């Protein structure tokens, strides 16, 4: 097993390209990615018209009859693609926030994004009866505005983790109260459609809805991987990172911006899917046997998790199709309990 812990170097140690990779991280990430793809093909075959693995593959490669091709490519593929991309985006943003706060309970929630996005959606649905585009804009506007407010309120000659958490809690509490008020004043119908959004769901995903958010997520993840080295340095502590020549303040701001961007793109497409951002980095850490955050492995873990949870949400209770957020929360809770009990014995 020790040979797995080798470090491999891409490029020259003094050259422009010098990328150091832990062999174990690479293998874990590749295995997870392969697992995600196999799972994706399998899930593509599930549904009211079950398809075999071979049928699905032939549809993907364009050799199937038009009817099968339509079912697979137009109906099922957008949902599966989005589960993969959004799961990866959420996993990565979780890794960024847990690394920034240096706390396993850190998640994009601490900056109030999800609560604010829910407020935006409730306002557009309950007060303005908005359509799909307006709901998406409401979510983005509410979430981003909240994140900016929390950040600005926490800024006092720099950002300090504990102050950020406290102010995040206070602002979220106010927004939650406001949401509750909207929930009990609106008509049952409008409030329920808002609540369905709030539970986080991939139901009814189409290419038209998927593509903008998929592009934003992919861009965000590329930016993230570019910042990976800085994440590792930030984990050594502010003083050490500063001594290594890193501008701590601006790095933190950039990481936060990219982290929020990833969550924003995901939330705009599906509503808040909780728990992936919390669990994926923790699972990836254990698989890689490392104490630092692993962005690529967290992303792959997130993709597998969301895809799996969505398959359960869609097919296990058929004919009912549950919002995936409810499944992630329940499975997530069980997983955390299992970790606790396992760590004890």
């Amino acid at each position, binding site marked *: 097993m020790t040979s797995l812990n080798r470090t491999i170097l891409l490029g020259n140690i003094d050259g422009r390209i010098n990328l150091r990779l832990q062999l174990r991280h690479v293998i874990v990430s590749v295995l997870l990615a392969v697992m995600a793809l196999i799972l994706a093909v399998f899930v593509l075959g599930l549904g009211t018209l079950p398809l075999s693995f071979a049928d699905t593959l032939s549809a993907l490669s364009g050799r199937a009859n038009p009817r099968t091709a339509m079912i697979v490519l137009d109906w099922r593929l957008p949902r599966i693609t989005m589960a993969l991309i959004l799961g990866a985006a959420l996993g990565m943003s979780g890794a960024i926030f847990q690394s920034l706060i240096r706390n396993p309970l850190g998640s994009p929630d601490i900056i109030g994004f999800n609560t604010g996005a829910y407020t935006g959606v409730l306002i557009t649905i309950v007060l303005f009866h908005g359509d799909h585009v307006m709901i998406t804009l409401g979510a983005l506007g509410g979430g981003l505005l909240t994140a900016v407010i929390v950040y600005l309120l926490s800024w006092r000659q720099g950002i300090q983790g504990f102050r950020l958490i406290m102010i995040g809690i206070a602002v979220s509490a106010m927004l939650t109260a406001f949401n509750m008020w909207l929930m009990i004043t609106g008509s049952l119908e409008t409030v329920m459609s808002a*609540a369905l959004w709030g539970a986080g769901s991939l139901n009814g995903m189409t290419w038209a809805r998927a593509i903008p958010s998929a592009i934003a997520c992919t861009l965000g993840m590329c930016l993230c991987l570019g910042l990976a080295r800085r994440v590792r340095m930030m984990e050594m502590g502010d003083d050490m990172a500063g001594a290594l020549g890193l501008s701590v303040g601006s790095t933190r701001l950039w990481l936060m911006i990219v982290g929020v961007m990833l969550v924003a793109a995901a939330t705009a497409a599906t509503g808040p899917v909780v728990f992936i951002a919390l669990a994926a980095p923790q699972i990836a850490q254990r698989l890689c046997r490392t104490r630092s955050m692993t962005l690529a492995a967290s992303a792959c873990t997130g993709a597998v998790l969301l895809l799996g949870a969505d398959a359960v949400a869609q097919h296990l209770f058929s004919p009912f199709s549950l919002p995936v957020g409810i499944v992630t*929360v329940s499975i997530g809770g069980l997983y955390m309990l299992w970790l606790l009990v396992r760590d004890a014995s």
Partner: protein
Amino acid sequence: MKAGRLIWLGIGLIALALLFVVSLGIGAKPLPLQVVIDSLLGRVDGPDSTIILQSRLPRALIGLFGGAALGISGALMQTLTRNPLADPGIVGINAGAGLAVTLGFAFAGISQPHVLFAYSFAGALATAMLVHLISIKGVAKPDPVRFILAGLAVGAMMSGISSGIALLQPAVFNRMRFWMAGSLDVGDLTLVLAAIPLICIGCIAALVLARPLNALEMGDDMAASLGTNPLKTQTATLLTVALLSGTVTAVAGPIGFVGLMIPYIARWAVGPDLRWMLPFSFLYAPILLLCSDIAGRLIVAGELRVSIVTAFIGAPVLILLARGNSTARTALQ
């Protein structure tokens, strides 16, 4: 330091007494002080005294005792877990009560306040015990972090199941959205009178627990040499917290934020000694709750529920404290 603490408590006592009386007088129909006193003493009879005895007295009483219960259980939780971010909800009390009530609405068709109280109270107590058992399973001594994680996990699971059920059944969803927004307007004096003895027992238990919990804060070894058993203390504290906040949730529905914020301010005002934090929380949590309830009656015509107003009054204070001078910040940390 001691004089300062006594001044805090004195101000709190006077403010609380005033708010209690104001809470009886203010509402959709404002009533003068004389009428309030006469009705309480049973010297007059009529529509005004019916309003006071049937509607406003239960409301003021649950504001007073419920607030005290939330403040005290928050102080106990933060000291037990050694974490200023812990609140009574972290034991999963609200999530457990919520699941029990959802199940009751969905499958047993419950509607009467007393049955609702029983479901919610049972759900809260059972969840707290489940969290406790999971957190101590297989470990030599209780660990605050395990306890918090177990509470988060159980709470997340239960609320996931409740919202799954509610989203599939619009009728259940409709009742749950009102239950979730806790309100002091319970309109039933017998329920409140049943809750008060439970809360009093919890408060006495909290006072007894103050010394062992103070000892635990010095570390397990130190506590052991002072004759404190960590496991017994955690079990007893948890039962007390479950009793106190479970009762409040059963009567009024979930009311968040009070149990998180007041102990924060208590630590800032009178220091981390539980023997001072408890009386401070006992006085100031009901002040926040009664203030919010009164404000909710005045702001809009249709009345805002207390769980909604509380955050709007409390959160700005918390933000100011978090941004405030360095002494306040160190106290909070």
